[in-house]
């Protein structure tokens, strides 16, 4: 019985990973790719790890797999957020289909702040 559950969870996981990777290839710009890839691949891998837990029960390896799930969740979401913010500040354009963009002014302010800091820093170095 446990074997069947394990196999089903593994198949679901690999299927979701497949969807995520297709999205990575097909979608038009960085942010959309990040959306599809992060969601699908994270949940797919969580499903595979859950299958591992079902196969071994609460032994050492099962508990390790269970422990890996929240780790994976937090690291994947935080990494996706950091990548989205970083690529916007780097100046990657949104795709042509985009309807609204409320972040533009804020990004300009942040960029100017960074530039100011850098200039101040280089002046400091020149003075010293």
């Amino acid at each position, binding site marked *: 019985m446990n074997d069947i559950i394990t196999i089903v969870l593994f198949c679901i996981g690999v299927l*979701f990973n497949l*969807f*995520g990777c*297709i*999205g990575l290839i*097909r*979608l*038009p*710009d960085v*942010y*959309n790719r*990040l*959306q*599809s890839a*992060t*969601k*699908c691949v*994270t*949940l797919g891998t969580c499903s595979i790890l859950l299958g591992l837990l079902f196969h071994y029960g609460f032994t*050492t390896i099962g*508990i*390790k797999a269970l*422990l890996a799930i929240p780790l994976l*969740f*937090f690291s994947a*979401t*935080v990494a*996706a*957020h950091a990548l*989205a*913010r970083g690529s*916007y500040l780097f100046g990657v354009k*949104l*795709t042509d*289909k*985009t*309807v*609204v*963009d*409320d*972040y533009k002014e*804020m990004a300009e302010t942040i960029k100017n702040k960074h530039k100011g800091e850098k200039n101040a820093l280089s002046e400091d170095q020149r003075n010293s």
Partner: protein
Amino acid sequence: MKYVIYIVIAFIFWLLITSSVSPAILLTGTIVALLTVGLLGRYFVDDVYRLFQLRRYYWFVIYLFIFIWECLKANFDVAYRVLHPDLPIKPGIVKVKTYLKTNIGRTTLANSITMTPGTITVDIIEDYIYVHWIYVSTTDPERYTEKIAGRFEKYIKRIFE
């Protein structure tokens, strides 16, 4: 007080990933837990007494189920958009206001938004969360605030604040 609790949590985590109780491993675990919390403890949450209020766990379990359900919905949503031949996307970045005040509450809200259908958090500045949305169905601020953040905010407020 705060540091003691974090040291205990770090030590339990160490025991779970090593899963053995030989003296050498216990000693290493103690040293590593002390080092970690001593170096990084000041970044963690201050109000540890909330860990002992049991009703927060009750709301946490309810929240967990809602979150998993939204997660599954998100995956089928992405699968539909990716496999559709015309790629039905209409992306945009919108600004969502939140009334959560603590840092951990905002972090949890941002992480939840990232895992729910079609939205990903780009930045948090003051009270506003900037959200990249794969299919902008409405441009009315009140309606999309309710749609994106409203379903989690009330639970997170009960868990962390």
